[in-house]
């Protein structure tokens, strides 16, 4: 069993602030983390390894500092880590990113066949959920998105059964490996890595591949050149023209505030009164 887990390093968006004057993201001091959705993918791969043995390789495309994200994954129990890093990747959209990652995975396969590829549902920065499907299509792998549970895996016969979240229900799906799984959030809980893994993660010789090492000759497929989408403008949302109309009564008794609000609501929005009367019990 060999699983490849794709992880992205993202800014911890809970701590992102936008500069009020220049409308740019203030990244200084914002910690970078492993995309939280990717941890569900990693944990699932580690569970399969617990059960069937084998290897878990984590892959990340990003700047040199993304090494920290990969080491984090090693500390959870991943066996090997590859950082794909090259200035030529800068500005990649999802099409170019899936190209670079699929080339990397092909290169990994030259050393060891890959049975399963895992990605997260989406990232918290780009947030497109497009990279997983892109990798699967480029490799000709079966694509299983929004997987909530791996029901059964038959390694010898290359068969897998999963539950997939669909609109209005759950699909029970059977397919062949190798395939690509995007794991739904909340489906498992990331383990605490043990002390051995922590030491190993710190010492591990991480592989860093540039464009050529990742087996990419076609420079026109990556970076800005390989990206059909172009960001033409970044701007702040328009504030609503008016602040809320504040309901105030001199005594600020809850009862009087409530009655005043109702009177305002129903005179200014008569339809709302009918709407409420219609449904209220």
């Amino acid at each position: 069993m060999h699983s490849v887990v794709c992880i992205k390093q993202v800014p911890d968006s809970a701590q992102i602030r936008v500069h009020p004057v220049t409308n740019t993201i203030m990244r200084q001091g914002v910690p970078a983390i492993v995309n939280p959705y990717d941890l569900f993918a990693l944990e699932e791969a580690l569970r399969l390894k617990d059960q069937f043995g084998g290897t878990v390789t984590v892959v990340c495309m990003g700047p040199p500092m993304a090494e920290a994200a990969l080491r984090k994954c090693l500390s959870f129990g991943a066996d090997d880590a590859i950082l794909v890093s090259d200035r030529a990747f800068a500005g990649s959209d999802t099409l170019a990113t899936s190209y670079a990652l699929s080339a990397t995975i092909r290169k990994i396969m030259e050393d060891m066949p890959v049975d399963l590829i895992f990605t997260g549902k989406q990232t918290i920065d780009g947030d497109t959920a497009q990279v997983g499907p892109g990798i699967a299509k480029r490799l000709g792998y079966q694509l299983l998105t929004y997987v909530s549970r791996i029901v059964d895996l038959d390694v010898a016969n290359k068969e897998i059964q999963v539950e997939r979240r669909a609109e209005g229900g759950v699909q029970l799906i059977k397919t062949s490996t190798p395939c690509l799984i995007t794991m739904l959030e909340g489906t498992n809980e990331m383990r605490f890595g043990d002390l051995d893994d922590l030491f190993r993660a710190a010492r591990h010789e991480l592989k860093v591949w540039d464009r050529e090492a990742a087996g990419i000759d076609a420079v026109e497929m990556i970076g800005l050149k390989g990206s059909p989408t172009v960001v033409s403008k970044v701007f702040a949302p328009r504030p609503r023209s008016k602040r809320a109309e504040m309901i105030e009564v001199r005594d600020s008794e809850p009862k009087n505030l409530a009655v005043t609000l109702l009177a305002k609501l129903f005179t200014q929005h008569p339809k709302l009164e009918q709407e409420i009367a219609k449904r209220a019990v």
Partner: protein
Amino acid sequence: MSEQAKKPAKKKVALDPRFVDYRHVWVVVESERGEVHPVSWELLGEGRKLADALGVELCGVVICGPGERGRGICGEAFQYGADKCYLVQDEVLRDYRNDPYTKALTDLVNRYQPEVLMLGATTLGRDLAGSVATTLGTGLVADCTELVIDIETRNLAATRPTFGGSLLCTIMTQRHRPQMATVRPRVMAMPEASAGRQGEIVEVLFSMIETSIVTKVLEFIPDDTRDKPNLPFADIIVAGGRGLRSQENFQHVWDLARVLGAEVGASRPVVQAGWAELDRQVGQSGKTVRPKLYIAAGISGAIQHRVGMDGADVIVAINSDPNAPIFDFAHYGIVGNATAILPALTEAFKAHLAQAKKTG
């Protein structure tokens, strides 16, 4: 529409010669077991505006199994603004599966060459859109909140929130066709259906045999929706936030909701604390809602919450902090303790409704 479509655009544009044959705006009408996902109608409403701006037709794409109301769905699509529908029906398309659906849609695009292709950002739409865009080698903009045509270049300017809505960015696919975009449910307004509006159905044959498809759907287990909240389509929502401080206090939200016949919504910390189910979370990582009335109690109005409820017609905010950001975009505000004001509101509505009933 089709006559107008053949007329040259008013402004002389040097359109890339590779693009000349790409015309018309397409919307994938998503259906499962004959049921259409409402986001498809919302997209047709938006698509109508784009098609009119470009002077082209608006076309629906209906992919389904035989006997799954294919023609009926096309008929509904015409009422919501489509001029034409491409209908692909085949036994292998009965359940959604990535491979056959990707092939069906990619074949259609290659044959009829739309300039804009839109899908709902649902589990089906995101799965399919990402696969089709990769197969076609074109650009795909995710979760757009605003779509505008740049008439001169016929480019689609697709705006989407970034970093949880604190900024917006406009993305264009200038060098490729079709230009693809997904939009989340409830982000665009539902158009009015105009009864009797007709259109043309183009049935397209699909040839893929079951034995060539690796993935099999063994079973579909429908969600038990009996007691499930349906926030995205609720007309009235009473939502509570961390300011309520405890599960017991959160009960005041339920009490008001009951009197109003409303759904209960929640901010993320409330869901994380376990006071409300995940299905009730409103915001960036929860549901997008468009009610006629949204009452927010003890919610600060963080951008990640705001992006999910900004589309409400009337927003009432109750917060003890007069400087809470929610007052910047609510329509009515009450500064005070929500645990005291919610019960007062419940009583006031109750009294008002009883009075209204009496007087008829």
